[in-house]
């Protein structure tokens, strides 16, 4: 007579071996850099091709050198230098930004995501790849869904968010809308990804969830058309003002 736990224990008794953590780290680093290196690789290929055909190539056929003085957004842990122009282009975000004040630190720089923190203020430049279905039952977890055609409507009708205001704004020269949201009260389900803090998951950048904490006021900037594309998700502690965050958003220009 055997119970199910014993059965599963027996069935799972397989040679385990050791993990190759070094290889896992390396593979993760490769995936992180894949998008960056694709661009570099293309440039390298062009240089090699130019080198191979050096006899026949004229000088003007060489790859043009960018005249733009912008810097790439620093790696996580780095801080933006006040007044210096940074490009988020290498991670697939079509913006240049300039920190108007000191203290903005880069927390994430990944494909489709630059996260900047200044104390408890957060600015996330993002390109969502999917959304988290809010589900009809707030006590249950939800599934990943494709990006909706109209992201603005999706956010403003999200059942687990309270929209406290919408404002027409201009971001990088385009007409956008700033949507102020807070998490619904009471929040009856908190996903595991929220690390014990009540939060709502909105979108996904790759496998990374985009969260809004119940303790925060979030302002989501997105095109007035609702069309899919890069957006900006900002958050400050509930009740704090958004002046510093707005100043950083105001610095965004098209790359």
């Amino acid at each position, binding site marked *: *007579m*055997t*119970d*199910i*736990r014993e*059965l*599963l*224990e*027996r*069935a*799972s*008794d*397989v*040679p*385990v*071996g*050791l*993990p*190759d*953590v070094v*290889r*896992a*780290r390396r*593979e*993760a*680093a490769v*995936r*992180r850099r894949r998008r960056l290196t694709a661009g570099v690789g293309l440039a390298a290929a062009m240089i090699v091709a130019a080198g191979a055909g050096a006899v026949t190539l004229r000088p003007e056929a060489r790859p043009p050198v960018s005249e733009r003085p912008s810097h790439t957004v620093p790696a*996580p842990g780095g801080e933006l230098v006040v007044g210096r122009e940074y490009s988020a282009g290498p991670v697939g975000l079509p913006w240049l930004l300039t920190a108007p004040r000191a203290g903005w630190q880069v*927390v*994430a720089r990944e494909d489709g995501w630059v996260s900047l923190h200044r104390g408890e203020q957060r600015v996330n430049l993002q390109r969502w790849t999917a959304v988290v279905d809010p589900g009809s*039952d707030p*006590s*249950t*977890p*939800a*599934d990943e869904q494709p990006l909706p055609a109209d992201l603005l409507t999706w956010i403003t009708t999200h059942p687990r968010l309270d929209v406290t205001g919408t404002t027409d704004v201009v971001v990088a020269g385009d007409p956008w809308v700033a949507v102020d949201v807070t998490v619904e009260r009471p929040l009856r389900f908190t*996903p*595991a*990804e929220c*690390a*014990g803090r009540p939060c709502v998951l909105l979108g996904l950048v790759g*496998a*990374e*969830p985009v969260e809004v904490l119940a303790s925060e006021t979030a302002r989501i900037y997105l095109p007035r058309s609702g069309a899919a594309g890069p957006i900006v998700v900002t958050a400050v502690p509930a009740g704090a003002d958004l002046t510093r965050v707005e100043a950083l958003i105001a610095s965004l220009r098209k790359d």
Partner: protein
Amino acid sequence: MSEDLDLDAFCHAQFPRLVRLLALHCGDPELARDLAQETLVKVCLHWRTVRRLDVPEAWVTRVAINQSVSTLRKQVTRSRTVRLLQDSAPPPARQLDADVVAGAEIRAVLAELPERQRAALILRFFCDQTVEQSAATLGVSPSAVKKLTAKGLDQLRRRLGEVTADMPGGDPR
């Protein structure tokens, strides 16, 4: 540096558990090791988020199960072919060991269960997750987990016969 040490320790601690649960889920110990290694890549990739979670093991379990589901779906035709070949081949020498045969047989029976029933049984009785935790891992409601568990146990009982006579009921917790 301390973050690196934490990551290494976490990966080493999780790997045996991942291989074993994936072996149950996908039925193939070798594939289980590959999937566990791939899960560690995702842990490294998302360590900044994972390390902040209250229960990072739950996230890792979900990633592992999802990978297994995805891989099995992609390889369904190939898997069937492999299984047919294995059925027709003489048992390899190492399967003469009674425990190994029993383990392989149980994995084979598990593999015949619908994917969500199999996952629910593994989460509930191998990972010792509560109904709510399993619901979060599978992305379904707690009542759905209870139904999946009950049906899975029923199927397992029928297929394995008296060896499972004292299995718990469908809603043990």
